[in-house]
C-alpha cells in the first residue's frame, strides 16, 4: 500500500534519514521502533508531506507522494496522529473533530465518522463544547486520534501515541488501535514503547540513527538477540 524507497532527508548538513526503505501492507499494523532521535518523526512527517526529502521516493498505491502537497496527501486518505497532538487548542472538541472531516471525501461521511469517534471515546462527546486546551493529556490524545479517524483514512500513522500518558490510558489507546485495524484501517505505529507496540504489530522496522537496522514480523524482531538486549532488556 505504502512504499518508501531509499529515502534520504536532511536538516541542513545533518542526515536525519539515510537509505530508508520500507513497505506497509494493507490491513496490517506496522511498527517503526527506535530510540529518541532515530528519525521516526522525520519519517512520518516526510510521508505526510510536511518535510521534503533530498532523494528517494514514496508511493501510496502507485501515486508518487513527492509530487503532492501536504493537504493533497491528507486528502488521499493518509492521516497522522502527530507527536504532541498538535490540536487546534483554541477550538472546541467538536470543532477539532469537524476539521478532521474537512476534505471532500471525509465530509461525505462526517456524521458516521463522528458517531464512530464518540463511540470509541465517549468522554469526547461529553466534552464536545470545551476548548481543546482545557482537556487532560489523555483526553487530548483521544481527540488527536478522533480527529484523524474523522478523516476516514485508509492509512493512519501514529507518532508516539503513548508519550507522557499513564499506563492505563496507554493500554486503552493501544486497544483503540486494534479496533481501528479491525475496521479495515492500515496502521503505521511509531513508538519508543517497543515491547507494547511489537505485541500488537504484524510487522516491524527498527530505526537507528536514521537507518533501518532490522525488520521482520513481530516474532522475528522480538526474538532477535540484539533487539532483546538493546530494547527489550531481556
Amino acid at each position: 500500500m505504502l512504499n518508501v524507497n531509499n529515502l534520504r532527508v536532511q536538516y541542513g548538513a545533518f542526515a536525519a534519514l539515510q537509505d530508508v526503505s520500507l513497505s506497509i501492507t494493507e490491513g496490517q499494523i506496522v511498527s517503526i521502533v527506535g530510540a529518541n532521535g532515530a528519525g521516526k518523526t522525520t519519517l512520518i512527517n516526510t510521508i505526510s508531506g510536511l518535510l521534503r526529502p533530498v532523494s528517494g521516493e514514496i508511493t501510496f498505491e502507485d501515486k508518487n507522494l513527492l509530487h503532492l502537497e501536504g493537504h493533497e496527501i491528507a486528502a488521499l486518505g493518509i492521516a497522522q496522529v502527530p507527536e504532541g497532538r498538535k490540536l487546534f487548542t483554541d477550538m472546541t472538541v467538536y470543532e477539532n473533530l469537524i476539521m478532521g472531516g474537512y476534505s471532500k471525501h471525509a465530509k461525505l461521511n462526517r456524521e458516521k465518522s463522528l458517531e464512530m469517534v464518540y463511540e470509541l471515546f465517549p468522554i469526547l462527546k461529553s466534552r464536545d463544547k470545551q476548548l481543546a486546551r482545557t482537556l487532560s493529556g489523555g483526553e487530548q490524545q483521544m481527540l488527536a486520534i478522533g480527529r484523524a479517524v474523522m478523516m476516514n483514512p485508509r492509512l493512519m500513522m501514529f507518532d508516539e501515541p503513548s508519550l507522557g500518558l499513564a499506563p492505563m490510558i496507554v493500554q486503552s489507546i493501544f486497544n483503540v488501535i486494534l479496533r481501528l485495524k479491525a475496521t479495515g484501517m492500515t496502521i503505521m505505529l511509531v513508538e519508543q514503547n517497543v515491547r507494547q507496540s511489537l505485541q500488537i504489530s504484524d510487522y516491524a522496522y527498527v530505526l537507528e540513527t536514521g537507518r533501518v537496522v532490522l525488520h521482520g514480523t513481530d516474532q522475528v524482531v522480538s526474538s532477535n538477540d540484539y533487539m532483546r538486549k538493546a530494547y527489550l532488556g531481556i
Partner: protein
Amino acid sequence: MVFSFELFGQAVVTGILIGGIFALISVGLSLIWGVMRIINFAHGEFLMIAMYIAYFLVAKGGWDPYLTILITAPALFLIGIIIFQVTIRPIIKDPPINQIMLTVGLSLILQNLALVFLKADVLTANTAYTRMNFYLGGVVVRGSQLIAFVGSALAAFILYWILQKTDIGRAIRAASQNRDAATLVGINVRSTYLLAFGLGSASLGVAASLMIPFYYTSPTVGLFFGLIAYVVVVLGGLGNFIGTLVAGLIIGLTESIGASLLPGSLARVLTFGIFIFVLLLRPQGIFGGKQK
C-alpha cells in the same frame, strides 16, 4: 471651553458611532495578523482606495452610497488577494523586518500613486444622507453615522459568523492555530491565507462605503485610519476578534471625548497615550491574548 452635560453626551454618542467604524476597519487588520502573523501597514491605504471607488460611484455615477458596497467589497477582496499573491506571499516566511518594510513600502507607493493620479484634493460626497440628523435631547445624532454604526456591526457579525460557523472559516482559524496540523487534516493553508487577506480587505470596502456620506477622502486619508487600526488591534489583543470590536468603541470614545475636552490636535494625545500605555503595561492587549 465650557464643559457641559450636552457636550459630553454629544461626545459619547459620536464616539460610539465612530467607534463602530473603527472596529470594522480594525477587525480586518486583526484577522490578517491572526492568520498569518503579518501586520499590513498598507491597511489604511486599502481603505483609501475603497473610499475613492465609493466616492466616484456616488459623485460621478449618482449611486446610492450604501449600494456601492456591492462594488467596493468585491473590488477590495480582489485587490487584496492580488496584492497578497504578488507582493506578500513571496516573503511570507521571511523575518518580520522584511515584511514590515514591504507593507510600509506598499503604503507609500499607494499613497503617492493616489497623489499623482487623483491629486491632493480633499473630496466630499454630498448625499441625501449627509444632512439627515436626529435630536436626542440636546444631542445631535447624525443619520449617516448611525447607519455606518449599524452597518459596521452587521458586517463584523457576518465576518464573525463566517469564521465561527462555516467550514472555510473554521479552516482559517485552524490554520492560524497550527499550520502543520491544518495541513495534516487536508486544509490548503496557502489558500486560507489568501482568503483571510481577501476578507480582511473586503471589510475595508464595506467600511469605505459606510463612511463616504460623512467623511472626506484624500490620498492621505488612510494614514489616520491605519494608525487608529493598529492602536485598536493592539488594545484589543492582536488577533482577538471580540477584543478588537470593544477596543474600536473605546478608541472611538477616546477620540471624541478627547476632542471635546482638549484643544485642537492635542485630542489625539489621549489615543496614543493609551497605545503607549498598553504597549508598556499590557502588550497582550486589555482582553488578554488570542481568544478565538
